[in-house]
């Protein structure tokens, strides 16, 4: 046990690694996310004993085994529910939830939605690889229509859904996006971790076995110029993008459009990012490749009361109202009668 007087050692990223061998496929995007997360915890000055990683089931959900913190690898889709229980029982803990697009949006869609609307103090990392990795490559709720996989040999007929639109609609108080190999991931995760309520960060993650380079446009592979396809959001700044920072997003008749700067279009005509604007957040969540560059960074952030604090608050209030509550009185409540010997 650490004594009260020992100054706490400053932990380094490697102190947040467990002694377990990491077993993802070589080249999997999960590695990059793992490394950056360990760095974020070190930057934040986190304590191993107060940090908990909870996950569902999927390749990405193996994450807790590789962290030197407390970890709980639960069941498919239900990580959010377990994490909610952890937070209710002990609001002091720093709880992270790792989930995949199948885990969080398919079987666990219900739980994800409710964790978000309750604003449980969780840091949710949603690894989106647009495929089911662990079960060998079936299409997922974020796969594009027409996707050919072992379960959809003629192409999938399900329309994909947008995790960010769902998060915004589910009243999430913090919504962001980043990419596994993007350096901005560290910043985004750090900002998310500092956000007091639920934060949801969608992370584009490359499943190099079953859906390799699904996000090539955002990572600059296959000849893509990534800066032409991602929109880096900054609070208070106009929405400019492109390798030469010569393109922007303008709103015309409530519809976003991509415009070329110059030729009568100036920065002043562009949308300015305001992370506290809920409508704007939804609009940003709708920008999709290839028509639009896809936003990365903090899309939405607002302060809302935290669920576990409200729970604890009611307990405290009840205790205040009935300071001398005791078991004896509880058992004797209502009408009692005595049978004499």
């Amino acid at each position, binding site marked *: *046990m*650490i004594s009260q007087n020992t100054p706490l050692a400053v932990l380094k990223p490697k102190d947040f690694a*467990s002694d*377990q061998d990491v077993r993802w496929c070589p080249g999997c995007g999960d590695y990059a996310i793992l490394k950056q997360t360990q760095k974020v915890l070190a930057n934040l000055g986190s*304590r*191993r*004993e*107060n*940090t*908990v990683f909870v996950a569902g*089931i999927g390749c990405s959900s193996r994450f*807790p*085994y590789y962290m*030197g*913190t*407390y*970890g*709980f*690898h*639960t*069941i498919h889709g*239900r990580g959010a*529910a*377990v*994490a*909610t*229980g*952890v*937070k*209710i*029982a*002990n609001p002091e*803990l720093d709880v992270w939830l790792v989930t995949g697009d199948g885990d969080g949006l398919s079987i666990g869609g*219900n*739980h994800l*939605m*409710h964790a978000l609307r309750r604003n449980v103090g969780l840091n949710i990392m949603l690894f989106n690889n647009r495929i089911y990795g662990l079960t060998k490559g079936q299409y997922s709720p974020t796969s594009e229509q027409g996707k050919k996989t072992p379960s959809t040999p003629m192409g999938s007929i399900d329309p994909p859904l947008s995790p960010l639109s769902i998060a915004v609609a589910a009243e999430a108080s913090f919504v962001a996006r980043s990419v596994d190999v993007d350096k901005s991931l560290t910043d985004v995760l750090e900002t998310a971790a500092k956000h007091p309520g639920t934060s949801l960060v969608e992370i584009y993650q490359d499943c190099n076995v079953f859906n390799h380079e699904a996000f090539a446009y955002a990572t600059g592979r296959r000849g893509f110029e990534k800066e032409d396809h991602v929109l880096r959001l900054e609070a208070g700044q106009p929405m400019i993008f492109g390798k030469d920072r010569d393109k922007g997003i303008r709103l015309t008749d409530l519809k976003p459009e991509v415009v070329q700067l110059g030729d009568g279009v100036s920065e002043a005509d562009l949308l300015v990012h305001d992370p506290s604007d809920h409508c704007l957040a939804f609009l940003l969540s709708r920008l999709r490749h290839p028509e639009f560059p896809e936003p990365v960074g903090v899309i939405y952030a607002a302060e809302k009361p935290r669920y576990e604090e409200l*729970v604890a608050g*009611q*307990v405290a*209030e*009840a*205790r205040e*109202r009935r300071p001398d*509550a*005791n*078991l*004896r009185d*509880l*058992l*004797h*409540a*209502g*009408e*009692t*009668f*005595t*049978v*004499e*010997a």
Partner: protein
Amino acid sequence: MSSGDGVSVAQKPAKRLTSAVIRFAGDSGDGMQMAGTQFTDTSALFGNDVATLPDFPAEIRAPAGTVAGVSGFQINFASEDIHTPGDRVNALIAMNPAALKAHIVDVEPGGLVIVNETEFTKVNLKKAKYAEGYNPLDDEVLNSSYQLLRVPISRLNSEALAETGLGAKDAGRCRNMYALGIVYWLYGRPLETTVTFIENYFTKKKKRPEVAEANIKALKAGYYFGETAEIFSTRYAIDKAEIAPGVYRKVTGNDALAMGLIAASELSGKDLVYCSYPITPASTILHALSAQKQFGVKTFQAEDEIAACCAAIGASYAGQIGVTGTSGPGLALKGEAMGLAVITELPLIVVNVQRGGPSTGLPTKTEQADLLQAMYGRNSDSPVVVLAPSSPGDCFEIGIEAARIAMQHMTPVVILTDGYLANGAEPWAIPDVEKLEPIELPEAGDASSFEPYARDEKGVRPWASPGMAGFEHRIGGLEKEHVTGNVSYDPENHQLMTLLRQQKIDKVAEQVPAIEPYGDADAELLVLGWGGPCGSIYTAVERARERGLKVAGAHLRYLNPMPMNLGEVLKRFPRVLIPEINMGQLRSMLRAKFLVDARGLNKVQGRPFLVEEISMAIDRMLDGTWGDAEALMPRNGELVLPRPWTN
């Protein structure tokens, strides 16, 4: 004798009885549950032993006046020790034709039937689907079979409240109190309890003093009616019961269970985190606990049952007591999460208030057919502890016991109660808080030598929770390596861990009290029960013994692991009868485990056993007429073979 508030008791002759069974029946909007509850409270406070059987329709408001919308409440109150709400109804109060139609079959021949004559209109008779032109009140057979008393309750009630200035609708609502007043007079009960209740409820809580006043007026008017009207020839007196000294209150199983869980939290110093999704008949546990936050109780109404179970597991993982409660279909949803608690070896309490199934089945009726689901309803070998309370009051003890086992043995514990125990009420001897044993918790040991899956001599792993420095570890649903808890696909390890998980549960048996049959030690027959039927079984066994038969009975509160002497007990008796509200689930388990020729009495009608049904089975077991059938079922007062019923 005074019944309070200056109402003096008329000098009509009172017939002394040792017990009486009365049933209030009316439309769901008629306030029958409230009338029944009030009668129960009054009788319990008076000093009778009581047992109740509320019976709700599944619909919240089935069309008024129809048989589907009838709500009933049966009370057995006695000057002797009773264990069931009674077989035959001695007095029925029927507030409309549908209520008469639905409940008359249960009234004993010659029994008292008080009908609210005002409601026997053409329209209401039609709604109750009586044949055109027929009015049961004029039926000669009915009149000669029962003491049929026509009281225009609705009309008399309105007249009594004419001066109050209350609208017709509000005044009409007081008719349940008018009816209750009549019954109070009939059985010589005091009015104080109900007057106080009305004042608390309508004046203090609902802030409607005029409604309180009207209800009290109706209650008294009903009482005076009994006294002055010349239609009752007799009154009845049921003396105080000789019950063990102590302080008592009336509790339902769900109330008692909620208190038991709070007690467990106090006894262990852990916060109770109760996670649930509403479902009948378990919801009232959630309601009861949500009102007790001053005890540090945290309640979480989850989005569904598996979420509730997962959140409870999360709470236990974080070091508090995670409890989740539900009923049958909800238990099915929790199954996968319970498996997670089994493999991670975390404490968890799962309350299943069983109801009629399968699927949505009979949501408001009782059944005990989830035993095998509790035992085996998960993938793979997934042993858990299973407990069943034997009476509403016993739910308190079971709540504490479940928490003790869950935390001391790091295991999920399923509590199987049922709709009958959950809603039924009985006087409960309030335990002395000082005498409740604290729940000692296992230590996590020393951080330097901590291994998440090292086991103590009971096979139990340490409970280290997030926040404890030096104990950081990872758990999850993948198979664990013995001792280290690391993920392991090693074949031998899986076999070992499967065995260790089983042995850990088996070891709980060392703490399980021996089963102690009551009745005749040299009995020819043992009647073994669990859960709801225990009361009926007890009464049937005692009655058989009064008739000179050699019979013993026993309650099985520990269904997994079973008491270590159970096999020996079963072999001690030449015959074994197991009445269950299912098709023979405990019977199958005991036959498989102990190779005992146990016979079953199986009733699956959404209703508890009548004592006489068990009595008949006892007789047929003992007189040799049972034959070689493994099980019989009660049907229309007979015991028949459980084969396809033909009409």
